């Protein structure tokens, strides 16, 4: 019980004292995950919206593959990106391995199927309800996908939250391609894993609290925006 209390108190101290070691890790985590989420969303929303409206041979098979990728283990993504970026890999010349860029790439690959699949579902439901009316006004699939994705923009906020949550909370991929180098590629999840294994629990707990608080704040903002949008736009 004493250990638990001591750990909690030291973690609180780290948080309130704005310990540089803690906040540098938090800043790095945010930088990597926000960038990866932004990249994944910019590709995934477009792709998902198009898949929600377009009809073509092999679409069902493609959707099955896409849905399978939702359960992609993060260490497998890490391994794949590691192979791509390793000295002998096709992207080895970039020299990105064990850098933040490699971590952004790994998280983007990890999150892209989430954004694409959830956007596709959202837009496809909207297409089922409204597609015929847009079609009757002469809107071709590309215009329908843009209009419906825009119309569902507040629902897509949930997709963004899910994507960011997946990115910032994963540990396997960034560990493999980033190497968890102190002061350089160490992020919240890898730091928690390492510090816990070393028995340095206060920093792990403090980082855990920050991680949960971040997700909570983001969800609260998204919920607030959706409520406001519902009142403002119906």
């Amino acid at each position, binding site marked *: 019980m004493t250990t638990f209390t001591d750990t909690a108190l030291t973690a609180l101290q780290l948080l309130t004292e704005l310990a540089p070691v803690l906040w540098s890790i938090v800043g790095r985590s945010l930088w990597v995950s926000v960038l990866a989420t932004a990249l994944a969303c910019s590709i995934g929303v477009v792709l998902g919206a198009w898949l929600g409206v377009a009809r073509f041979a092999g679409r069902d098979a493609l959707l099955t593959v896409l849905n399978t990728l939702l359960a992609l283990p993060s260490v497998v993504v890490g391994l794949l990106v590691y192979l791509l970026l390793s000295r002998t890999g096709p992207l080895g010349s970039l020299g990105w391995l064990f850098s933040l860029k490699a971590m952004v790439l790994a998280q983007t690959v990890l999150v892209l199927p989430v954004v694409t699949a959830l956007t596709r579902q959202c837009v496809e439901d909207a297409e089922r309800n409204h597609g015929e*009316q847009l*079609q*009757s*006004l002469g*809107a071709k699939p590309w*215009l329908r996908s843009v209009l419906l994705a825009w119309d569902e923009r507040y629902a897509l906020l949930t997709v963004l939250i899910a994507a960011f949550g997946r990115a910032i909370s994963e540990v396997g991929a960034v560990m493999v391609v980033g190497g968890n180098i102190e002061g350089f590629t160490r992020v919240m999840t890898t730091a928690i894993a390492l510090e816990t294994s070393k028995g340095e629990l206060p920093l792990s707990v403090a980082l855990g609290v920050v991680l949960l608080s971040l997700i909570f704040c983001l969800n609260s903002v998204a919920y607030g925006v959706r409520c406001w949008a519902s009142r*403002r736009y*119906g």
Partner: protein
Amino acid sequence: MFPLRLIDLRFAPEERVVLEQVNLELSGEGISVILGPNGTGKTLLLRLLAGLLPAHGGRIDWGGKLQPNGRLAMVFQQPMLLRLSVFANVEFALRPQQMTAAERKARTLEVLERVGLLHREKDCARLLSGGERQRLALARAWAMRPRLLLLDEPTASLDPSATEQVERIIREVRTEGAKVLMTTHNLGQATRLADDIIFLAEGCVQEHAPAQRFFARPQSPAARAFLQGELPWRITFDR
């Protein structure tokens, strides 16, 4: 595009016959109203004409062509409005057309004024009342300057005042030269608007006649029964 001919049109998904041997010829002027009991395929016929569904037999002849060579728009019973302003809900429908931004804006403002929604151009479309929503949907279709306007029970859930406003717009669209083909269950509305009546029952056209003659002397037993309010749901007629 006209005369528009439906020749032996058939729609039978999974062998369940909904429309069969639909034969019809429509001129390019006036308002044609499709009447008939529920479930006889009135809306379906509009959707086939709008190209939203493929027919399973027969063909549609657009003035000697396989595809319509004029614009066509459809307004649904429950109009779909995007989470955008009233203005943007009309303007987007003009984007597929070759118009400049200035032309789109001018046309949008013009139709909004004509349907009495100009003062609400900046408001969110989804917050409009039922009657305003339907007027906006009509404005959106009208803005496209359609040669054929398909209306699926456009006043089904509106009060008499909103219905009157929508009917006024429909008359204006006709005056501008568009052919209007609409469905309704409102016999009063059909009397007020229709130039000719297409009576659909049992999945085929039972009668197509000028409105006055149809209401005064319906020729088919099904139409007579319908007008007297006696038509059972699934009656078998001698064909």
